[in-house]
């Protein structure tokens, strides 16, 4: 059954190329095909112990099997971990496609074909049962992303994606090779890694490789360029969806393949393995630095890109700490990030679609013109900042609790201050784009785009009311790792340190809002036009060309303080690596002198060493 889905995705991708001239038709077909992975996810819900109404189970995928492809075989299987990540990606994907129908005009066939191929790759990665299948689909996904990045026509984005993508693939491949050397098997289930130093190197390489896709610092260099120079629906899927594959891979190899015991065998710190602790520290640094950098951006897409990097850092923290609480928190954060970041990128795309501007300082006052886009992004921003009106808070709360539970005195304040920093850039988006002086007389975004955004807002509301459902989804994953699920009911999550009762918050908000409404509605009010403020309806003519929108260099004092520390960023670090590589390469080139006698000497030397070694052994 599953191969049929893969085949349909592949076939439709080719069909899209043929339909290049008819973007709307291609988009509609692609949208309907993109629903298939989501239906597949739903049909597996029963296996994961999650009951869904039977009318949602259309495909009836119950069992998985091996498929022979030529000489080799394609081994696919659904695991609880895979199911969770597939749920995120497969529910995001159709909405992105729906949005694209009204957004993508230029060479649309190519766009849809590459998008479907990324989904094909994703599907394979998540279902892979062995390293070979995993890597095969990983490459399909990576190269399809490259095709989509190419469409941005930005040299920096293309080159950096290519460089880091190849580096990631190489790191992963080398790691796989070492693991295969050690265990003599490709199947994840059969790998029993020994606590050797070689395996530590292999695991570190694999995690570093996945960190590229997950945009962890210092492997994030490609992300701001690629996120900010490609088409918005794709970026929404790349940032919201595909970046999770990096974390899926990390989790798969750290906890499913290697396991807690093995990680702990390389040393622990307060019952957290050093391996995981380092990942958590890198994650905390990423969360902090990504946030600071996001505050300084003026390009809306760059701001969202850095904010995305910062928010992904939280997932790494949770995965690093690796307690049931932390893993649940990491999965919850992954879920939230998928939806809020997608909504924000899509809203940015909708703003661009109407105004043709990316710079925050050139936008402004769109809140009253595009109210539904504004409200959708407001919800997404609440989730991003962790305000308890959306599900964003529960994820951050779980991660903070996990860090305090392990008494991480230095990581926790960094996480918390990064959370406060998120308010800064969140307000920059809100004010710069949607509030302030109205400067564009534009219409609301097209219906397709609005529907896509609002459907993606839904999970943020649903999981506000039922945070326990995420704990339910995390339970089978934790069970696989031999851990207990965190104590929870649908509404209340309890930890050893505190309680989060979402009903108290929701009813509290409703109650206090009613109180505020009563106070507020006591006296009538009149709504006056925007110019009727301190200017008394007469903006001075002298200043007609001067904007009253204060968004240009909004956080200037902030930049003055922080920019000196962030000027020599990660790119400088990689330049050093590049320079070292150049020196090594130049040295190595000197071996090739082009003289036959030198080469004869090399061969002779080689044999002498070989014989000598053989004699001495």
């Amino acid at each position: 059954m599953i191969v049929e889905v893969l085949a349909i995705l592949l076939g439709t991708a080719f069909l899209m190329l043929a339909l290049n001239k008819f973007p709307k038709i291609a988009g509609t077909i692609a949208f309907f095909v993109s629903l298939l992975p989501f239906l597949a996810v739903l049909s597996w819900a029963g296996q994961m112990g999650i009951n869904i109404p039977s009318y949602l189970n259309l495909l009836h995928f119950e069992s998985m099997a091996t498929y022979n492809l030529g000489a080799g075989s394609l081994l696919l299987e659904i695991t609880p971990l895979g199911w969770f990540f597939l749920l995120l990606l497969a529910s995001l994907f159709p909405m992105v496609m729906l949005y694209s129908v009204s957004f993508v005009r230029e060479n649309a066939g190519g766009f849809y074909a590459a998008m479907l191929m990324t989904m094909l790759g994703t599907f394979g990665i998540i279902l892979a049962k062995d390293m070979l299948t995993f890597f095969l689909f990983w490459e399909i996904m990576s190269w399809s992303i490259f095709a989509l990045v190419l469409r941005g026509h930005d040299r920096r984005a293309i080159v950096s994606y290519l460089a880091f993508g190849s580096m990631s693939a190489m790191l992963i491949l080398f790691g796989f090779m070492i693991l295969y050397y050690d265990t003599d098997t490709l199947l994840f289930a059969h790998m029993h890694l020994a606590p050797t130093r070689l395996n530590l190197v292999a695991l570190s390489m694999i995690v570093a490789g996945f960190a590229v896709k997950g945009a962890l610092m210092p492997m994030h260099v490609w992300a701001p360029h690629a996120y900010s120079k490609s088409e918005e629906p794709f970026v929404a899927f790349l940032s919201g969806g595909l970046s999770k594959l990096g974390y899926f891979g990390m989790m798969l190899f750290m906890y499913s393949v290697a396991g807690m015991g093995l990680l702990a065998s390389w040393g622990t710190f307060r019952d957290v393995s050093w391996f995981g602790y380092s990942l958590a520290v890198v994650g905390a640094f990423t969360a902090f630095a990504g946030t600071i950098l996001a505050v300084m951006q003026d390009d809306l897409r760059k701001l969202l890109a850095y904010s995305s990097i910062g928010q992904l850092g939280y997932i790494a923290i949770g995965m690093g700490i690796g307690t049931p609480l932390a893993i649940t928190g990491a999965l919850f954060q992954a879920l939230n990030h998928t939806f809020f970041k997608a909504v924000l990128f899509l809203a940015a795309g909708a703003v661009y679609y109407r105004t043709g501007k990316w710079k925050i300082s050139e936008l402004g006052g769109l809140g009253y013109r595009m109210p539904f886009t504004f409200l959708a992004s407001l919800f997404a921003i609440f989730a991003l900042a962790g305000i308890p009106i959306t599900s964003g808070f529960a994820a951050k709360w779980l991660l903070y609790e996990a860090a305090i539970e392990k008494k991480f005195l230095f990581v926790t304040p960094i996480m918390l201050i990064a959370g406060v920093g998120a308010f800064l850039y969140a307000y920059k988006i809100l004010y710069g784009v949607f509030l302030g002086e109205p400067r564009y007389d534009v219409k609301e975004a097209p219906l397709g785009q609005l529907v896509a955004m609002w459907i993606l807002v839904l999970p943020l509301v649903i999981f506000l009311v039922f945070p326990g459902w995420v704990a339910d989804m995390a339970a089978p994953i934790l069970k696989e790792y031999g851990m207990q699920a965190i104590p929870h009911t649908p509404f209340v999550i309890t930890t050893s340190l505190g309680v989060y009762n979402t009903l108290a918050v929701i009813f509290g908000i409703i109650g206090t809002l009613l109180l505020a409404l009563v106070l507020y509605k006591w006296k009538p009010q009149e709504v006056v036009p925007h110019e009727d403020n301190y200017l008394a309806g007469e903006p001075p003519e002298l200043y007609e060309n001067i904007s009253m929108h204060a968004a240009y260099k909004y956080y200037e004092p902030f930049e003055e303080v922080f920019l000196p520390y962030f000027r020599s960023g990660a790119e400088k670090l990689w330049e050093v690596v590049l320079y070292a590589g150049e020196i090594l390469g130049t040295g190595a080139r000197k071996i090739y002198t082009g003289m036959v006698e030198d080469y004869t000497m090399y061969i002779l030397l080689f044999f002498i060493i070989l014989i000598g070694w053989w004699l001495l052994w």
Partner: protein
Amino acid sequence: MVDFFALGEQILVMAFLVTLGYAIGMFFNGFARKITARIHNRVGPPIYQGYIDVFKLFGKKTNISHGWIFDLAALFSIAGITLVFLFLPVAGFSMLSTDGDLFLILYLLAIPALGFALGAGASGNPNAAVGIMRALMTMLAYELPLVMVIVAMMVHYNTTSLAGIVAAQSNMHWAIFLPVFLIGAIVADMALQGMLMEKPFDIPIAPHEIATGPMVEFGGKHLGALMLYKMMGIVVETTLFVDLFLGGGVILSVAQYGWLAYVVNFLVWFGLITFVFFLALLINAVFPRFRIEQALKFYWKYDALVALLILIWIFVEVST
């Protein structure tokens, strides 16, 4: 089955406490102006000026709005700050504080702030935008030392719940009596000065530079709502400080003394928050204003450095 009688009783008690909280907040407004005036050797307004102002503003016949996003400020600021108050243990009495913890309170505090910021931004006045920028940066500045101290306290008391921290300080085991948290209280009091937006950290309002910043376009009931927010904010923030370091003002145990304990504890709590606010007023009355980057440097360099010492202290404490 839900016990409607108990629920109703709880809601009535909460309504009473919220009313009391607002009454204290309004009193604080007049109190602050009177104290500042006396320090400046002026006569100053009567001590009940806060009540007069709020009732006047809510009684205005013409109220000017700039649209529905502008109105969000009034709604969110009152709703948000009341909600935070409900989640705080007040004089050891918990309304909703067993349903959420200190992290929730820290994030709930952002609801009124962001709602206020939305409305101020929607007014389209550049002064308001600059004021919000300053407010957010001040927040970033004072939050770092504050969260460092809070994290140290959470690890020390091994709970994230504010009610738990208050309970751990019962029988007069107040945190401030421990040397490490005496330093912590000083650090947090500095942060409180920024939180209350008193000088030298009144950068966001800065009446002489940006014409009261965020509040510049608000009038009538909108301004009334924001005044209520600010007044309740003082109660909430000082209560947070008192809960953290001064045992929430609990000196008699309820189990032992019954209703007498409630009355005494409430009086002690009121005395303590008044004292904490009074300290802030004294600093406010004599200091000039920092520039924003000076405030950031003050908090991140000096205040956070001391907070770092506290973290190291607690780190040693848990490691041994």
